[in-house]
């Protein structure tokens, strides 16, 4: 079955596998900076996957898609995060998580297997080998991103969780709907940047008024400080 793949397709498979590994790494990393770094790597691999498909299957739109991914997720979002967040927040270590890291990794693994089982019957209806690779791995990334959204307690890794879900959807999307109008993808990329600006600014002001960015600590209502009146 592998022998039927062209070199571009098998390199795409490699990229998709490494995207999944990056998703696991994001779950396992304690440092905010490390999470952001893995997100950048994942986005680069995603763009590489899009370029490989564009090259292998001669779809011009995918070239533009890959370029949009690199600009939005590799350059603009990390820059935005760096600008809006204070340095202290950005290099913080030892993020508190709802579950410890080995348990999180095992859960993420279960999610990946569940994704394969869920998508398997659908993918087997299609003959295109790229769908067999990208659809289950993309869904796995979406689920793992969603999991880190739940398990993380710091706001920035949670934001990265949302973005990782988007990455997973992108990975699945380029395989099943390569001819999606470019304008839709442009909108998504723009939205993602806006989300990170909004969350970044919000986190900053939450930090200024409450003194913490741990979403898990924000369980009780607080009275207005006297200075607000």
């Amino acid at each position, binding site marked *: 079955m*592998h022998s039927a793949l062209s070199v571009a397709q098998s390199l795409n498979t490699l990229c998709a*596998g*490494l995207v999944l590994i990056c998703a696991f790494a994001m779950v396992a990393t304690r440092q905010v900076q490390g999470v952001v770094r893995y997100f950048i790597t994942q986005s680069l691999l995603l763009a590489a996957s899009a370029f490989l498909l564009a090259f292998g299957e001669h779809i011009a739109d995918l070239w533009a898609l890959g370029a949009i991914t690199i600009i939005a997720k590799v350059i603009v979002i990390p820059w935005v995060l760096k600008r809006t967040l204070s340095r202290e927040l950005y290099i913080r270590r030892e993020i508190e998580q709802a579950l410890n890291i080995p348990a999180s*990794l095992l859960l993420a*693994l279960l999610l990946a297997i569940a994704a394969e089982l869920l998508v398997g019957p659908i993918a087997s209806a299609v003959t295109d080998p790229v769908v067999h690779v990208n659809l*289950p791995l993309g869904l796995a990334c979406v689920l793992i991103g969603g999991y880190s959204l739940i398990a993380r307690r710091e706001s920035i890794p949670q934001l990265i969780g949302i973005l990782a879900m988007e990455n997973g959807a992108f990975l699945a999307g380029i395989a099943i709907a390569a001819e999606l109008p470019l304008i839709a993808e442009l909108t998504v990329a723009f939205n993602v940047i806006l989300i990170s600006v909004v969350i970044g600014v919000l986190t900053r002001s939450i930090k200024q008024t409450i003194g913490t960015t741990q979403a898990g600590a924000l369980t009780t209502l607080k009275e207005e400080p006297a200075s607000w009146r």
Partner: protein
Amino acid sequence: MKQSIAYNVIQILFVLVFAPLYSGVLSRFKEIVQSKRGPSIFQPYRDLWKLFHKDEVVSSETTWIFRITPYLVFITPIFVATLIPVLTDYPLAFAFMGDMLAAGFFLALAGFFGALAAVDTGNPYGPMGASRTRMVGFLAEPVFMIVFFTVSFVAQSTIPYIVQQQWVVNAAEFFSPAHVLLLISFLMLILAEGGRIPVDNPSGHFELAMIDESKGLEFSGRGAALMKWGGQMKFIVLACIFLNVLLAPWGLADGHSAVQVIAAIPWILLKILIFAIVLVAIESSLSKLRLFRISEFLGAAFIASVAAMIVSIFVGA
């Protein structure tokens, strides 16, 4: 048949002779990276020579386990060397006696007796190191198994000679995610099993921090030499499995004449040298993990190997 056995003997000699050199080269490279001069790369040979000529002291409290352990530790890598492709890419006389699982079992046997012997002496550091090696061992075991399962899914066999053909014949197969993920997890395994830096510090001399070294503290004379040599051979055998079976099965002798088999030696040495440089780069850029972080390191290796299996089952089929 006779010729095949002769080549097997050459493979064993290769492992025997070059194992100390390999550890000498590794430590020399490491010293150079740390801006030191370091001992000569032939120092491990001198150490072995010196130890073989010293008297052996065995505590009267110990049992037969302590006495046979050095021989077991020395012999098991030799058995493994008969099972795996060290110099040739066609199966030799004993190749079908056992597969990669058997190789794993042999190495585990040596580890088991090493741990028993360390407990046998009653030295407080020995059992501590033994229990730590067992901890690393049982965390590494599932990774070993999943790696072998994945290999058997992909190559339909666990005989190393057949597995190795899988990557040679098919260039597209080489870049398949299952293969790359396997390589990552097996490399992490080698670091853990060989007692290299993110898991254990092979050049550390502080007994409380030792994992692998403290098992051998009580041995002296010939026993110490055999333990040392056996450890070095285990590492070169693991490197051979990694390089010749999984990563880069090129440069092995494919002809049946003695000249071709001998001519393969420099190529294998070159590959191992490159691997040594990579290892030194890894070891010099990382620091030793805290003891309870090792489970996370091997957990990551486990995740990588299971991901390889998922990808090879669902995507490959």
